[in-house]
């Protein structure tokens, strides 16, 4: 049975697209046929992060309007042949998406794919609403920072009341916390909310912590999902998250400050 995952946050710039790209790649690398959809109509960026921006011919809105078939619009990833990208339209506005149209496309994808990852736009408007509406699981991407935590809580309220599952009185969406841009050193100094602090407030199941890492910018610069950088801390953290989501038992890493005295003395930042 296919599962629809929404990657959401409310707040912008916390790492939704980075996370969508990484976990979609991770699921596909584990042998599951996966599609990742950009719901940010008018401000698409998933294509850039996945490195397929020059191969976009048709988009999500073209398929909804019947101007292209789903197979014409889906772009096969260059690194993994089980991964497909459905880009958002760059020229239309957010009203180009309709609940009926999105529902039909997701139903069609469910026949062929094991996982469908929906990369939500920021905010709580139409695009964000449609990205989460049909979801089975929600990855709530949060930074250890006040505005992000507040917006995540707001998003949790929306997931619990405005989704298809909520409206049909079905089992609620399974919600998972992904804490990104985490800096164990700053937590230790009392300058940053800790994992426990954020969990106390949001009471969510923690799927994983992504440390603040140079590898994330390196990955987006080159258009390769950071999970493929297997030597990097962020890449490993995302690999752990995918494994945990699939039921493997992996201890949490990157939560504690491992740097010793000299590491602190000479750290560059």
């Amino acid at each position, binding site marked *: 049975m296919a599962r629809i995952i929404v990657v959401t946050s409310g707040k912008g710039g916390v790492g939704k697209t980075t996370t969508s790209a990484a976990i979609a790649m991770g699921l596909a690398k584990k042998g599951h046929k996966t599609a990742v959809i950009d719901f940010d109509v008018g401000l698409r960026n998933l294509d850039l992060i996945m490195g397929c921006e020059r191969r976009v011919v048709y988009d999500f809105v073209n398929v909804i309007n019947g101007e292209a078939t789903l197979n014409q619009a889906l772009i096969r990833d260059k690194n993994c042949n089980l991964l497909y990208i459905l880009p958002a339209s760059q020229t239309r506005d957010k009203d180009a998406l309709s609940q009926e149209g999105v529902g039909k496309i997701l139903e069609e994808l469910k026949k062929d794919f094991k996982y469908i990852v929906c990369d939500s736009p920021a905010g709580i408007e139409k695009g964000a609403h449609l990205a989460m509406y049909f979801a089975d699981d929600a990855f709530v991407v949060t930074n250890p920072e*006040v505005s992000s935590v507040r917006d995540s809580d707001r998003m949790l309220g929306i997931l619990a009341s405005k989704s298809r599952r909520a409206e049909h009185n079905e089992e609620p969406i399974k919600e998972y916390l992904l804490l990104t841009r985490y800096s164990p050193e700053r937590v230790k100094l*009392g300058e940053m909310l800790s994992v426990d602090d954020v969990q106390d407030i949001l009471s969510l199941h923690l799927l994983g912590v992504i440390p603040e890492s140079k590898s994330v910018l390196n990955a987006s610069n080159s258009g390769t999902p950071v999970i493929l950088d297997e030597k990097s801390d962020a890449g490993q953290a995302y690999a752990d998250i995918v494994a945990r989501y699939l039921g493997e038992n992996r201890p949490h890493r990157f939560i504690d400050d491992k740097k010793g005295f000299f590491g*602190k003395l000479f750290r560059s930042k």
Partner: protein
Amino acid sequence: MSLLDYFRISKVGSASVAKERLQILVAHERSSRNQPSYLPQLQKELLEVIRKYINVGQDAISVNFEQDENQETLEVNIVLPDINTKNT
């Protein structure tokens, strides 16, 4: 800079302030999230009715909705003006 940081560990950081502020805010926003959407309109109309008879200010009325396992309570609180300052 990082050398100085190392000697300031004992300083109380801003994270605890952030947590406290968030806990209060999130609790408040969650309680208002469960309120029925007609509350503001109800409050406005009640105020109009009361004002037909008594001259009260905008903030003289508060409408609270509370919910527990067994019951839902709608609490309406109206502060009447002081008898001495009454002007009709």
